[in-house]
């Protein structure tokens, strides 16, 4: 038991996850640049290994905390990356789209390096601030962020393909990327799954805030940027319906909306300190 509770195990699992994700990222890039001539199966296996390490790190932290909870930024980012990789693997398995790994795994790797750099030791959850609504809020938030991250990766691939098709239509890289139509629809489909969950997370957060403070909405920077991100995705759906915005515009909107999500998490904490 002491071994499980030691910081060494948690660190080892995190380093294992980071190393696996790094190798997976390199293999995804190698596969893309060489048209899968190099070890086509390794990147997915390495991603699964990384996900295993990620999962175990979460389990160990939960065990150390003594309850099912997401307490700090470390816990949240581990959950966020877990959902991103899990959703990414589902997409890779369902659509044979390993190419999304070059963007998704690069991002996940960067996020976990940040986690390692700012690793916070497990603290006992503040039961009085917590409650089921808070857990529901944080879980749905992490889940929706993870799903949006995959949509972002697909959007970036779309923009890459679009750019390469215009500048070098017969190039090896252009040919190695999936069809634009598939990418466009896939990005939309993923956002269709992520957006209701994101909306649910805001509703859970409002209920939690109301139980705690008697105010369901207080226009704090975190709340305001959630609202802005939510509007960005609403605009994404309405612009598709209204203007028939598909293709490049739609991909840009998916990418920019995810930027708003990232700002909600990182930007508010760093550019607007004290307003988490």
């Amino acid at each position: 038991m002491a071994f499980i509770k030691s910081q060494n195990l948690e660190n080892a699992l995190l380093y294992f996850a980071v190393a696996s994700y790094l190798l997976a990222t390199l293999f995804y890039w190698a596969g893309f640049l060489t048209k899968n001539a190099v070890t086509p199966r390794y990147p997915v296996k390495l991603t699964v290994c990384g996900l295993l390490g990620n999962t175990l790190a979460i389990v160990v932290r939960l065990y150390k905390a003594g309850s099912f909870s997401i307490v700090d930024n470390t816990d949240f980012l581990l959950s966020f990356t877990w959902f991103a990789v899990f959703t990414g693997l589902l997409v890779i398995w369902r659509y044979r789209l390993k190419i999304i790994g070059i963007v998704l795994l690069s991002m996940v790797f960067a996020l976990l390096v940040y986690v390692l750099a700012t690793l916070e030791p497990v603290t006992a959850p503040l039961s009085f601030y917590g409650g089921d609504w808070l857990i529901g809020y944080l879980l749905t938030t992490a889940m929706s962020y993870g799903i949006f991250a995959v949509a972002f990766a697909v959007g970036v691939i779309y923009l890459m393909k679009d750019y390469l098709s215009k500048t070098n239509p017969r190039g090896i890289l252009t040919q190695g990327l999936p069809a634009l139509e598939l990418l466009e629809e896939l990005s939309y489909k993923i956002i269709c799954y992520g957006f209701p969950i994101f909306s649910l997370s805001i509703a859970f957060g409002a209920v939690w805030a109301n139980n705690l403070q008697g105010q369901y909405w207080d226009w704090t920077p975190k709340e305001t940027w959630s609202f802005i991100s939510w509007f960005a995705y609403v605009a994404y759906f309405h612009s598709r319906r209204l203007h028939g915005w598909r293709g490049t515009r739609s991909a840009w909107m998916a990418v920019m909306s995810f930027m708003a999500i990232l700002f909600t998490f990182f930007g508010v904490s760093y550019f607007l300190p004290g307003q988490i």
Partner: protein
Amino acid sequence: MVEAQEKHISISQVWRFLASMRVGLVLMFLLAGAASLGVLLPQGTTAVDQQDVFSKIKVFLGINQIFATWWFKVLACLLGINVIACVFNRTGAVLHVFRYPHMRVNAFERLKFNDTFTLKAGIHELTETVSQALLASRYRVMQSTEDEQVLFYGDKHRLAVLGPIIAHLGTLILLAGVVWGSFAAYEGEVSAVPGASFLLSKIATHRTGNLIDPDFKIQVNEAKTPSVQSEPKGNLSFVEDGTVALTGDVGFNSPLTYKNVSIYLVKFVNGVQVNINYQGKTTPVILTASGPNHTQVPGNEKLMLLWSNVNPLTNRPSVDFRLVKGTLETGTTVLQQGRLSTGTVTSSIENLTVSLEGYRGITILRAVKNPGLGLVLGGAFLLVLGMFISLMLSYRKIWVSLVQEGEQVLVSAGGYGKLKLDFEVEFNSLLEDIKGNQGG
């Protein structure tokens, strides 16, 4: 007559404008832009120098309190009207689509996915095959026969059509709750010192008019300070007409509610209690590090105590003070200054002595009554439900026509779905089933 027609046209134009999704989109962008300004610019600051032109513009536009400005509320109201107009305009058509399936199709070739081919088979045999294939893909199947033609209509995930209506209705209910709350809700905060009691009407911030009904007295029986692993708690009583109506604990995440008024324990702060004795009368004052930095001496408008360096330590609390004569506006003269710690009493100046009683844990309570809350939360969950239905379900329709032509059957099929690639796979698989079973 002509004028009436023109008027009619103009009203319908206004209505169309208000119901336009384009207007809704613009309003959303404006609201999001205003909200981001509200985050980037400091909010809640007091009025700026009125002489400066830019300051006047800032005050007029309410840049220092964007979320409470008239124009932000106007934008939100316009968005609400847009949603109402959208719901009114589209609900009828959507319900019609939902209730009455569109059995007939004028031209298969106009559908996004279509195919026409002939099969050597009897029409009755093929009818069974098509029906089974559609049912196997979980389509709701309807069939009609006219002359030599058998027409199939299949759809699935029809509920998705209602999703946007449910989501927009949820938005309307949510907005109604917000509006109701903004007119009828009130809230107020108070420091809960054990033994203290306060009237709800004295602490509540009235949003509009006198809405405190009924007016209770809330009595603080106990306020427990937090320790490493225990949360702060309070024990309160609601006193109505001089009798205790309800007594209970209040803590984080567990408010105490009586007659729709909820008392929340919102935070706990450390402070010190200072006793001001003026002409034999003692007045206790609670000071916190972030609290007010001056106190008017009760009974003397010319004497004031300025506080600084409040150290609310449980074992060695202290606070620095300056006793001044005058007002902050006209200028002050320092009569005495120093540091107060437990047990020290200042020397008497103008019949005034000040002493530090000790550390005080201060529980901040918030009294809230928001009759619109149920609508807001109910509307929010309806909105989310509508999103799940409309976005996670993909409405799909398929039409198949079978016409006997001699020994062959002419098969025409077509359909569409929200997600084209997924639908294409399903449509082609269905055609394969029809062709495969007949060896076509």
